[in-house]
């Protein structure tokens, strides 16, 4: 379903989600062209979780993501060129080349820190929420993490403490293993988690839970509104699990673009996609689902979408050019920023 938002916001939602998709596709091509910028994780196939979730927040709210952070950074308005430059290790990068893809952050956009250690971000985000509580502010903090973080002790400890202290945090769990090996074999959610349902772990310590289909932008937005509202009104934490299938390009150890970029014609004719992606584009891709909803509700016309896509393609090419043309940082800057007040 479509999120309950004004038309302009629905269009902006598409703008952001399509930007993430095109930017990530371009990043995968860039990685294939070389030189290598190391291991990385893309947000393709999860745009309908993060972007609608961000639309449930105020600009003053905080978001703490993981290594799969590009979607959140772009969604909160990070410059696509500066994010690309960061990934290439350039001086003009968001963090002057100190972070790279895994650790990029944007404190000025309310993304103070990214942790690429599984489970590492969860207590930190909840602690930021505690600070809002101590200050008497109505700010809400979102901890974003994957299903893998549910295997970590740090996550359990954070859920328990957040519940005890009723801190204003939303635990947004992006479960992208809907069709993983364990699930296919009849075990849920996957072979490494003994809990039958990830929410069981949160409920065990009194944290209320919500589950949504992560390909349903409207469902995510509505569930997120509920969780954010509980946090903002001193109701404490919520565990919100958004379930999606893993995008086939994220299955290999290094992201790939199987069958090339997503084409807009797959909205109407998913059977035109390469065979290994037909099921993905017809049933599993949240972005295409959102496009179909936008078009069928007349929020945008087909030509509007094509124009927007062309504009985003150009924006992404600008970003790549900016990043490629940017110089590397001076080697001596390796010694800077260790401590405040001194090098």
């Amino acid at each position, binding site marked *: 379903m479509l999120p309950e938002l004004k038309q302009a916001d629905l269009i902006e939602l598409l703008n952001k989600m399509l930007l993430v998709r095109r930017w990530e596709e371009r990043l995968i091509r860039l990685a294939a062209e070389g030189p290598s910028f190391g291991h990385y994780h893309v947000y393709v196939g999860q745009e309908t979780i993060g972007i609608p979730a961000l639309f449930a927040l105020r600009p003053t709210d*905080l978001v*703490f993501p993981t290594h799969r952070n590009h979607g959140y950074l772009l969604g909160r308005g990070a410059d696509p060129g500066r994010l690309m430059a960061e990934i290439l290790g350039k001086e003009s*990068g*968001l*963090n*002057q*080349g*100190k*972070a790279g893809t895994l*650790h990029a*952050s944007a*404190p*000025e956009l309310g993304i*103070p*820190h*990214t*942790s690429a*250690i599984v489970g*590492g971000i*969860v*207590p*930190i*985000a*909840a*602690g*930021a*929420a*505690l*600070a*809002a509580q*101590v*200050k008497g502010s109505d*700010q809400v*903090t979102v901890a974003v993490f994957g299903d893998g973080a549910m295997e970590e*002790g*740090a996550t*359990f*400890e*954070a859920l*328990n*403490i957040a519940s*005890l*202290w009723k801190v204003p945090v939303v635990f947004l769990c992006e479960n992208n293993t809907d069709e993983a090996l364990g699930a296919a074999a009849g075990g849920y959610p996957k072979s490494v988690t003994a809990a039958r349902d990830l929410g069981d772990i949160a409920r065990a310590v009194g944290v209320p839970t919500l589950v949504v289909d992560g390909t349903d932008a409207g469902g995510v937005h509505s569930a997120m509104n509920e969780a954010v509202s509980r946090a903002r009104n001193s109701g404490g934490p919520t565990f919100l699990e958004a379930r999606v299938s893993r995008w086939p390009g994220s299955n290999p150890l290094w992201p790939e673009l199987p069958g090339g970029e997503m084409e807009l014609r797959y909205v109407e004719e998913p059977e035109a996609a390469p065979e290994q992606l037909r099921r993905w584009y017809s049933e599993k891709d949240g972005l295409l689902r959102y496009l179909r909803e936008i078009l069928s509700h007349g929020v945008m016309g087909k030509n509007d979408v094509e124009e927007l896509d062309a504009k985003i393609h150009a924006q992404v090419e600008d970003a790549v050019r900016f990043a490629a043309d940017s110089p590397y940082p001076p080697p001596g800057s390796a010694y*800077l*920023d*260790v*401590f*405040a*007040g*001194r090098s």
Partner: protein
Amino acid sequence: MVDATKTQPSNPSSDTRELSYAEALVEAIAELMKQDPEFLIIGSYILGLGPLRGLFDKVRDEHPNRILDPPTAEVGFAGFGIGAAMNGLKVLVDLSTASFVFEAFPQVVNEAPNARYMSGGRLAVPVVFHFLHGLRGGGAAQHSHSPQAMLWNTPGLQIIVPSSPADVKGLLPAAFATGNPTIFVDHSKLMPVRGPVSNSAKEIPLGVADIKRPGRDVTVVATSYSVQQAFAACESLEAEGIDVELVDPRTLVPLDRQAILDSVAKTGRLVIADETHRSCGVASEIAAIVSEEALGSLKVPIIRVTVPDVPIPFSPVLESELDPTASKIADAVRMQMTRKQVGAR
């Protein structure tokens, strides 16, 4: 054994009072809580479980909403402290016994010290992790650690190792003033140690060593409770006519290298006393710095008085065998005075 009730040498004046280390620490915390409504404490065994722990009750009674007792979940509440600091609070996270920092290691060594650097200098993380290190008597292998050397191998952490009431009072606010993540290392045996504290005490800048006792013959560099052990050694050595210069770096990060080098240049002899283990310990790093930068000043080889590389045993007799005591420090100083000079035949 050091007589903890003995006042350290000082210049008495009407401006100073005599306080125990525990009282000075509680005063420092109380002042920070009072000055800043956004100062938060997570964990409250700051004075340990000894008889002085009740001194903290007053602070707790005054600020019940800003002193939080977390569950036994060190990685969790260490992370809470980091996140709260990232969102504008000043946070003191008390990990109690130093050995428990291992339960919090992913947050203490892989989040807090990296966050500012990874952000490109945009993010301040004013969190201070506090713990009681070292040989406390009966702590045995799992409750006697001195992890400050391990943590010194983690760039991005300030490390503070006070040894006196005046130092703990001045260094705690200084740690918060920098906005940097900090390891604040106390020792349960320091808690009853008494000494003068100035009424008009200001922050003590980090990275400035204190010459606890000026001397001519041998430099002793010591940290934390080992400074007290070294004091006791100085007294017996003085009676033998050996004049020790006792240098207390007070902070390992930043380290006042120059004060150590200057003292070694004066005496030509160096003993380093510390409760971290011998290999890759605090004494190892100080010895390495002096070897690299002042080898020509040394008349005789450096001696390290440290805890040997074995786990800490329970039995008092066995623990004492490993303890870098005043008498071991005194023996090392005597050996420095009697050793043949480098190059002499």
